[in-house]
């Protein structure tokens, strides 16, 4: 679903992403770990077509992201760190609007079913987004992905700032989407959540993918240890 080959991005000669190779198949959840400036967000921006690569290619559903930007966006959904919706519209209206401009005309019943599937409490459906917590907004974001029937989900620090319950619920939602065959690429700092939801984990540093594992092959402690050593941080004994 997502194929990245030798993807490089330089900003004024400064390397942000260096020869990245990565593949996320149908139903897989790939978590990219790394410190700030490691190249996680640059990877996502490239996949979204927000920026052009210096070299290399990226395919979504076998379509080149940089040549067929508009087409590839039909297959993907994106949830940024702070998902901002229209505060003066209700949850249903936001969902209707974003799925509508993506080309999906849905009945009110369908919209409600997607919000339910995303786990938003029913009494919030007709409320304006302005009073929604970050976790609730993320659920609307998931509902947008569901409504769009996205085959690829790109997430940029989606769990930062979420309380444990909301973070857990979000992980469950990702799991449900993966069951439906959605390929997910998630940039995160949250090792615990990455270990819990991911099928594959990659650690990035200085624009390079330094380590890559199958999530089930590594323990949380092992992941933490590898992460710290990759980053050249010393493990603090407690």
């Amino acid at each position, binding site marked *: 679903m997502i194929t990245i080959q030798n993807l490089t991005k330089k900003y004024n000669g400064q390397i942000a992403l260096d020869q990245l190779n990565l593949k996320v198949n149908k139903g897989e959840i790939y978590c990219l770990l790394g410190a700030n400036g490691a190249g996680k967000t640059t990877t996502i921006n490239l996949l979204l077509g927000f920026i052009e690569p210096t070299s290399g290619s990226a395919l979504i559903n076998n379509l080149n992201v940089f040549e067929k930007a*508009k087409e590839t966006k039909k297959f993907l959904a994106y949830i940024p760190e702070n998902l*901002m919706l229209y505060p003066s519209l209700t949850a249903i209206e936001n969902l209707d609007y974003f799925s509508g*401009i993506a*080309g999906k005309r849905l009945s009110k019943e369908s919209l409600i079913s997607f919000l339910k599937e995303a786990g938003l409490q029913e009494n919030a459906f007709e409320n304006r987004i302005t009073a929604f917590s970050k976790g609730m907004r993320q659920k609307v974001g998931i509902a947008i992905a569901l409504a769009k029937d996205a085959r690829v989900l790109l997430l940029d620090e989606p769990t930062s700032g979420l309380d444990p319950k909301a973070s857990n619920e979000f992980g469950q939602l990702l799991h449900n989407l993966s069951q439906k065959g959605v390929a997910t690429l998630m940039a995160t700092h949250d090792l615990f959540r990455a270990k819990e939801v991911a099928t594959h984990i990659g650690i990035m540093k200085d624009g390079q993918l330094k380590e890559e594992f199958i999530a089930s092959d590594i323990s949380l402690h092992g992941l933490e240890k590898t992460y710290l050593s990759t980053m050249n941080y010393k493990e603090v004994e407690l």
Partner: protein
Amino acid sequence: MFSYNFRYELKLLLRSKWIQLLSIILLLLFGFSGYNGKEKVAKRKADIVAAKNEVKENDEMMLRLLDSIEKGMEVSASRWTIPTNPMVVGNYNPRVAAMEPQSMAFIATGQADLFTHYVKPKVTGDDFALNFTEMTSPVQLLFGSFDLSFVIIYLLPLIIIAFSYNVLSSEKESGSLRLLASQPIRIQNWVLQKLSLRFFWLSVLVIIALLITLSILGITWFSTFISFLILIGFILTYMLFWFAFAFLVNLGAGNSAKNAISLLGLWVLFVLLVPSTLNQLSTTLYPMPSRTLMINEMRGLKAEVAKKQDKILDNFLRDHPEYAINDTTQTRGFYHRYMASQQLVKEELKPVFMAYENQLQKQQAWVERLKWVSPAITIQESLNKMAGTSTGDYEHFRKQVVVFAETWRSFLTPFLYNNQNFTQNNYHDLPQFEFQPKSVTEQPKILGILLFIALSLFSIGFISSEKVKRKSMLKLL
């Protein structure tokens, strides 16, 4: 995408208190300016009616005097006010040459603050003595008139700026732009659609505000439906200009403050700076001859002519033998000499008048050529022409009055040289002035050109944004 944008843009607009406030302001501005325009037209009409009533009263008095004289009765009036003398009729009972307000006069005061709307040409007066300028409030001249054209040209762009400066930047600042940009849409199209919808809703608001204002003020717009449609056409085209500017500025991907300042800068440039610079340049390049110098020249000439009035009269009568044939008395007095010399004065002053008129025409032609530099000038000119209050309209009126003044003189002069009394029977033959408004035919052409320029601006924005879209996108996000 369009139907969703349309529906939700309306919802967002209706739920925005800021937009609700702007709509109320718009309605109040249209209401107040429409009221002002109507009051000015009413005053103009009242002035003309009062002048005509005065003439009517004087005529009744004249007819009573003539009736008494013709019945052989003695009248208690000074000799120089007895209307059997054609010069008395010509000087003391002049007709009113009035410029009646047009049906759309309420939309633009134009030059109405500077010029009078009626004059009474006298038989002994010369063309230059016809005073078309009118003293008016200097405060009003300083600030201009708060009429519909002022609201449309000066204030409506500010409302459009408030309506459109942050279409894209607010998405960027609120954080929703990344989500939008991840959808299979082109941001340029999305901005264009948003602005189109705001243009549509603002157009609806403007038309409603205009209709409500006209209905409340009792202005029968439906009787001049075509003019009303053209007015709407001008307003919408002018609005389109400002939305085109907003489109270009929004695609520049600046923040809201930068966008607002850029648009306000364009407002200052096109609405204030360009028109005032053109005005200053027109008077610098084509300065009007001094009116004081001309009056001095005219007085000198008249004094010269007065010295040789007997000779002038002899020459005049030689040129008009019909007067000698028809007049058995051959009595010649002051008026005979004066009227004969008038023709000479007129011929001598012709170059002076022409210099004045030529400069005025050059000024007007210069402004006419350069009006396309600013949509504000083009629209102001067009609204003034629609209202019948443009410089051209007053010039058109002045020319008709000069012709009428000549007709008035030509009618009464034969009575004078034939030493024939003016009677009640002649009263009905007195020439009457009927104002013929200037025909306005170029409006569709102007509308077409303005529309073309506005759409070209949109195209420029679209093409240039295509070229820089990658860079812009990064800047935006």
